């Protein structure tokens, strides 16, 4: 899952190294529109629906946070 997520992130913002970042949002690597694109690609790739209320910056601030939200959506 981690590799797939990284692949999506690099596709969105190829100029950044997401493996070296602590917080994608605070470091200005993803804005709210990137998060929208990310959600859409995660939904397509993992066959999930992410709840609108879960689309908050902290849930997309790191690879681990994104894995958690994907796993939560898979269980929903």
């Amino acid at each position: 899952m981690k590799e797939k997520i990284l692949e999506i992130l690099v596709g969105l913002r190829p100029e950044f190294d997401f493996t070296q970042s602590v917080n994608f949002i605070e470091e200005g690597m993803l804005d709210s529109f990137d998060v929208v694109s990310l959600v859409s690609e995660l939904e397509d790739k993992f066959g999930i629906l992410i709840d609108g209320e879960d689309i908050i910056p902290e849930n997309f601030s790191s690879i681990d946070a994104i894995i958690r939200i994907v796993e939560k959506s898979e269980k929903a």
Partner: protein
Amino acid sequence: MRLFFENKAITGILAVVPDKEILFDDEIENYEFSKETSLKLKHTMGYNAHRVFEESVCISDVAVFAINKLIDSGKIDRDSIDALILVTETPDYIMPPTSNVIQGQLGLKEDMICLDINQGCAGFEVGLIQSFMLLEQENINRVILINGEMLSRKVSKRDRNSYPLIGDAVTITVVEKRKDNGSIYANIRMDGSNCFAIQIPAGGLRQPSSPATSEMHRDSFGNWRSEDNLVMKGDEVFMFVQKKVPPLIRDILDFSGFDSDEISYFMFHQPNKFMVNKLADKLKIPREKMPSNIVENFGNSSGATVPLNISYNLADSLKERSMWLCMAGFGVGLVWSSMVMKVGPLKFCDIIEFGIGNS
């Protein structure tokens, strides 16, 4: 706040859109983003085509054109208009009220009321609430509600997050007294403490427009805009909608006593396709009952999106029969409001185009 009305109806809707259509594919080069990234957003957000009026066109030009069309075709009688309400954030002037400009140009009677209301995305619901309140008066039988925006001129053409979504439109809604049209249920809420989540910083008295306010600045993501341009805190607005709108809709269904499957359609304001679809999923409403195709075909015209949505998606049905609709608007202010009411059969429900040749 819950509001309740009776013996009133929408009897016709005429939406006027610009004849000038801009395609997102043709403007991708204006933005500092990779084509691939922008095309991903196109699919998700509904960036496709949007309509913008020429820079010389103002709200009053379009409203006068449209209302004259209704008068000339016999759909409304000039002397029967007892009130004219204009809801807009882009008036012709600071002074006089644009509704008075429209009244004068149409040659309407003096014995009437004109009102300008500065509201945005919930402008259709706010305008309807005001219309219904005026119709409580014995001497007011017909209200013309105008929702119009020319926001394309206030959004930077180099702002990839906002410009592709923005559209201009003017809608004319006729609201009248009508017995036996069922009850009308509305609710409305406001949060002025977060009013700057969507704003145009300069141009009012607090910060007048000047050469300094027109200087373009690049944000950290590559969007260029000035203090004269609309700026939106996208993540705050998204969270506001996802947190506040579902309880608002549950409340209006509870108030009206309807189950969601008894509502024919949920005609919501459309900030973008993604947000509307997320609301439908959250409320467990089939996406086909909550159309999300206005942004991709016309752009987001703020308070005009709901009547345009109705005209684009339901015109044929509503000219034939009535149906129970749930309408909702949410955004600038911050304001969020919804309404459940029976709409139709309408005397007219159409979309026409306006170009420079019409002014």
